[in-house]
């Protein structure tokens, strides 16, 4: 699936070559600039959204993307409870059936690897919209697009990833994508209980991306161009005490802003709980709402690339 040629399924960040990324970002840019040119591009095509885990923004942004391109959408929330999965149907069978109705399937699942399993049997493109603690490649696409849009480059940037790095699929996907760029440096800021997993650190070593692991956010803030905050994911903790021990540990507030570079940006895949104080929202460095808005053109570009 290398060099911008064929894109069949979107399962994990690693599959995107740099040239394919650049092509997608150029398309996203064009969509942002001249949205009317893309109206009706996917006329008559249908997107199915199968969500086995709750989501509002990812799902709505995919649906909005499809609708704005002239396609139609259908789907099920709580697919786990309300679909045939509740009757014991396997994911593979569900995908075979839905593939008969739709031209593309967007799937979010609670199990890591679910999207890959779906792709193995699917007759239509599968887009992974999050598979448990696995990956969330379209979030990573819009994250990189946002960095490029805000700082006008991705090569050479210094990024701090903060919070729940063990369970955070967005940081996993983003780290894989960042490793495709030049002169990146990454700080993983997390308590040991939810530190970045070893497989990704090994991946970075393999790609000669320097990384530092620390628990001290304050010392990292003056160093970086991007502060990527994440939520500690309560739903992935088996034990409530373990969650309580680490929740609320990192927070960006006006005092943290004072430590940051004047042009650096704060990103967050949202939803936030208390990782970013509301007072930060008005600072020009608060990029998370702009980041969320970028989900639309980037997902439009991706659907357009897969289907037209």
């Amino acid at each position, binding site marked *: 699936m290398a060099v911008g040629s064929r894109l069949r399924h979107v399962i994990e960040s690693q599959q995107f070559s740099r040239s394919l990324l650049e092509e997608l970002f*150029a398309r996203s*840019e064009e969509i942002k*600039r*001249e949205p009317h040119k893309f109206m009706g591009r996917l006329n008559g095509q249908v997107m199915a959204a199968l969500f086995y885990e709750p989501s509002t923004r990812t799902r709505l942004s995919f649906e909005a993307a499809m609708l704005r391109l002239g396609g139609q959408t259908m789907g099920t929330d709580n697919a786990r409870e309300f679909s045939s999965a509740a009757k014991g149907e396997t994911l593979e069978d569900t995908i075979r059936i839905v593939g008969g109705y739709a031209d593309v399937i967007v799937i979010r699942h609670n199990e890591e690897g679910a999207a890959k399993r779906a792709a193995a049997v699917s007759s239509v493109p599968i887009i992974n919209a999050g598979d448990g603690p696995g990956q969330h490649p379209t979030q990573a696409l819009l994250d990189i697009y946002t960095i490029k849009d805000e700082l*006008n480059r991705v090569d050479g940037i210094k990024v701090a990833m903060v919070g729940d790095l063990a369970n955070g699929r967005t940081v996993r996907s983003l780290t894989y994508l960042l490793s495709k760029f030049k002169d990146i440096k990454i700080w993983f800021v997390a308590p040991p209980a939810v530190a970045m997993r070893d497989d990704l650190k090994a991946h970075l070593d393999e790609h000669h991306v320097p990384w530092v692991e620390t628990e001290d956010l304050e010392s990292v803030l003056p160093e970086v161009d991007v502060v990527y905050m994440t939520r500690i994911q309560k739903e992935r903790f088996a034990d409530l005490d373990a969650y309580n021990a680490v929740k609320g540990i990192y927070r960006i507030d006006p005092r943290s802003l004072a430590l940051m*570079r*004047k*042009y650096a940006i704060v990103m967050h895949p949202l939803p936030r709980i208390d990782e970013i104080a509301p007072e930060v929202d008005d600072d*020009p460095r608060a990029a998370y709402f702009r980041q969320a808005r970028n989900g639309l053109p980037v997902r439009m570009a991706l659907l357009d690339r897969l289907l037209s």
Partner: protein
Amino acid sequence: MKWAATVGRVKGTVMDDEAIRRALTRIAHEIVERNKGADGLVLVGIVRKGDTLAQRLSSAIGELEGTTVPVGRINPARHRDDLHIRPAAIDGMDSELPDINDRTVVLVDDVIWHGRTIRAAMDALIELGRPRAIQLAVLVDRGHRELPIRPDYVGKNVATSADEMIYVCLKEFEELDRVVVIK
């Protein structure tokens, strides 16, 4: 948008006022970081809009460093390489420079395209002194270079086709800050 009517049809916006402000803040930082401070720097804007942007960059650097960076302006019209086909429509503003000898001059312009204006500006500059170094800051790089010139600081790279125009609106001229694509 009264300014647009005079130049063509607006296809879309590539930077809004906030994005322009953030880009200039970032460029100010990059200039200071790259030159390890603001000492010995002179900002020289290419008339007319580069001139305005140089003023804004100077205040942004002032905020960062607490010093005033001297600002000048350069009119490259007489040094253009197409005077024989397009006789000089030299607009009013003359070059006005602080001492640039042995200083690092950061040339500032709104858009870089073929690079010919920058070449002319460098010639105009060197006629008036011998800077220690010349660097280049632009708000928008739209590609299509015809000379071996590359900006050191860029607000935004915008992919364009040859028949499109990038128009930078600045409050001082058009009552709003915005970068648009025009066809």
